């Protein structure tokens, strides 16, 4: 685990004061970052990284298939799923947040997809896994993975967000980086069979059936009610994720995909679908995943993940490398449909500019936005604001609080503010 040797990189000239800050801020982060700074002080002849040929240009590299299932570069190991200390007490009923601060585009690498388990995860033998579809059907059936994977499949890109994402920030700023504020969020291409096809195959009672219950095979036997209109619209019983099978932490070999709906309904290790005519009001529907309102009532079945966005670069816990040009970039998504527009402000919401949406703007999927910004070295507050194709505009935290108070835990889709200090340090703040 020796520190990886880092090629020296060019760093923009910075005023002495800022350079001193940056040295202090990042030199502590390891020799690699420090050497990047040192690259700024190149010799009279030029950059040693160019003038002195490195070993990889003058030697023989490694053979094919030396790592049969490839791994990220050794230089990328800082980007890991991480727990938020103190958030949960038991690692089997906890969350590991995805490192959004280091991701590009809209697809979450399978190994960085966020984790949320209710009673620990398992690596289940797919040959022994079964899915049962029963209840209000003419013919209750059992499917093996062989059966399911013979059926006509679909592949669709969708985001999944835990209903409690950003839940720590209802009252005040509580965590430092976008990994912890927004990292219960991922977006993958899922492959599977539409649940409607299985219901048809079992002859479900289309007249009287109004809901299905999805149940996991893990110890928690997690159960959630899904309304029939969603099931018939776009719910999928999925085994594939980003071109490979689901990872065990994400429900291998079978999970629900319920586009636009909070993650808890995407039941993992799916073993049973029951068709019924009323909601089940399970534990995850009457004790958890309920939103406490100021009048003391809990909202039940709050499911839709409304339009939301966040700037991932620059974001909290980072330091800018001096004045000059930056590509402000982030993610936007809506559980109600497609992202229509994202606006970015660098002055705390007083003035806004419309960002560029990168290609692949898909319904109920992450959408990448970007906007060029030249930092003049002064203080700034960066915000992004998503608008979806229903016309809904992402709200400010004070607008959410005015209706829902500060204790609802779930469905905080507020505009996120990142303060850029004159030192270049970026921090999580609330401003509206």
């Amino acid at each position, binding site marked *: 685990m020796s520190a990886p040797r880092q090629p020296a990189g060019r760093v923009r000239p910075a005023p002495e004061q800022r350079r001193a800050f940056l040295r202090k801020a990042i030199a502590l*982060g390891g020799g690699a970052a420090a050497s990047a700074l040192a690259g700024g002080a190149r010799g009279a002849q030029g950059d040693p990284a160019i003038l002195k040929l490195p070993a990889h240009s003058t030697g023989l590299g490694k053979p094919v298939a030396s790592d049969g299932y490839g791994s990220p570069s050794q230089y990328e190991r800082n980007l890991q799923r991480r727990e938020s200390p103190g958030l949960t007490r038991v690692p089997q009923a906890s969350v590991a947040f995805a490192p959004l601060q280091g991701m590009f585009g809209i697809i979450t690498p399978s190994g960085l997809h966020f984790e949320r388990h209710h009673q620990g995860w398992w690596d289940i033998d797919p040959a022994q896994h079964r899915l049962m579809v029963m209840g209000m059907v003419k013919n209750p059936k059992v499917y093996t993975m062989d059966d399911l994977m013979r059926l006509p499949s679909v592949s669709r890109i969708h985001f999944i967000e835990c209903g409690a994402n950003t839940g720590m920030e209802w009252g005040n700023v509580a965590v430092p980086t976008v990994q912890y504020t927004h990292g219960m969020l991922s977006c993958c291409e899922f492959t599977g069979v539409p649940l409607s096809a299985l219901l048809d195959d079992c002859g479900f009672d289309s007249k009287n059936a109004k809901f299905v219950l999805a149940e996991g095979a893990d110890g928690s036997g997690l159960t959630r009610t899904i309304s029939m209109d969603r099931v018939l619209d776009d719910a999928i019983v999925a085994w594939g994720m980003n071109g490979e099978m689901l990872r065990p932490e994400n429900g291998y070999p079978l999970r629900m995909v319920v586009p636009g709906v909070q993650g808890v309904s995407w039941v993992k290790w799916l073993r049973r679908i*029951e068709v019924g005519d009323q909601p089940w009001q399970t534990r995850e529907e009457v004790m958890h995943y309920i939103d406490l309102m100021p009048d003391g009532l*809990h909202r039940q079945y709050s499911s839709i993940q409304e339009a939301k966005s966040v700037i991932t670069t620059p974001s909290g816990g980072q330091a800018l490398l001096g004045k000059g040009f930056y590509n402000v970039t982030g993610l936007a998504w809506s559980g109600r449909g497609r992202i229509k527009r994202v606006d970015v402000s660098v002055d705390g919401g007083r003035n806004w500019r419309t960002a560029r949406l990168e290609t692949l703007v898909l319904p109920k999927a992450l959408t990448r936005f970007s906007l060029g910004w030249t930092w003049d070295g002064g203080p700034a507050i960066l915000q992004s604001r998503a608008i979806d194709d229903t016309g809904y505009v992402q709200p400010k935290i004070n607008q959410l609080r005015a209706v829902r108070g500060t204790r609802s835990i779930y469905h905080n889709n507020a505009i996120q503010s990142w303060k850029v200090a004159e030192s270049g340090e970026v921090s999580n703040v609330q401003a509206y």
Partner: protein
Amino acid sequence: MYKLTSLVLAAALSTGAAAQDKYPNVGRTATPAEIKAWDIDVRPDFKGLPRGSGSVKNGEDIWEAKCASCHGTFGESNSVFAPIAGGTNRSDIEKGRTASLLKPEQGRTTLMKLSQVSALWDYVNRAMPWNAPKTLTPNEVYAVVAFILNLGEIVPEDFVLSDANIAEVQKRLPNRNGMTRAHGLWDPKGRPDVNNTACMKDCTIDGRIVSQLPHYARAAHGNLAEQHRLVGPVRGIATRSDAVASTPASTTRTLAEKSGCLACHGISTKVLGPALHDIAAKYKTDGAAEARLAAKIKDGSQGAWGPVPMPPHTHIAEDDIRALVRWILGGAG
């Protein structure tokens, strides 16, 4: 021909249902025994509830043996899971609304939130005990549920819960009328409850920074420099490092060792007491924590992290205690 055979076969296997033939030979009819084995859910109308019964007394015995180590003897423990009982009263039982949900300082227990007794039965049956789910018999589940209900004084001590009287118990749940579905977040066509406008220029803003991370919480999530890529337009900020530890903080660490703190507290692991990093995380947004924790070190404390008490430390000077608290809240680097 094959299709016809398959149809006839499937029809013969299925229990009087018309078989579908769109995907011949994919999947098969579930047997009654298979459905019985997996169809364990209990609905609010108690469809799916097995017959049986269990007493509060019997539930107490099971609780002591299988539940109390995590949940506490009276379901009050907050050390592993959130408390189960507490926060409800007789008036709530009459009205069906938990009044203490209106108190911001009140933590939420299971019984304060629970609106359906069916869910309690279903959950204990499918997911408990924590490390051996689905091992309780139906009568044991009835007994444990009866014991929990008695903790909330919803049923008396001599109560025997059964499939015959559980519907009556539902009518006494403190928060049975505490749920609402009058919001736009379930129906795909539901209307949003909070609206913003897309002002673009000279918009009205408050302008103040109303909240930011307290300085002592900077290190509560570890060294952020080690959570960011080594190249690109930004770097992670170093919030904890050897260099920081060689500043006066390391003197405090020596003080912590000398004072005996580290005999019971690991820096990042739970020993007898909570990890120092966990303490920093727990109080990261609590501006008044410094004074409170100083008093706890001096006078001793019990209950914040579980039943094991921390003894008083009258031998440590007050200045040193304050330094220790600041060091702990700052990440114990």
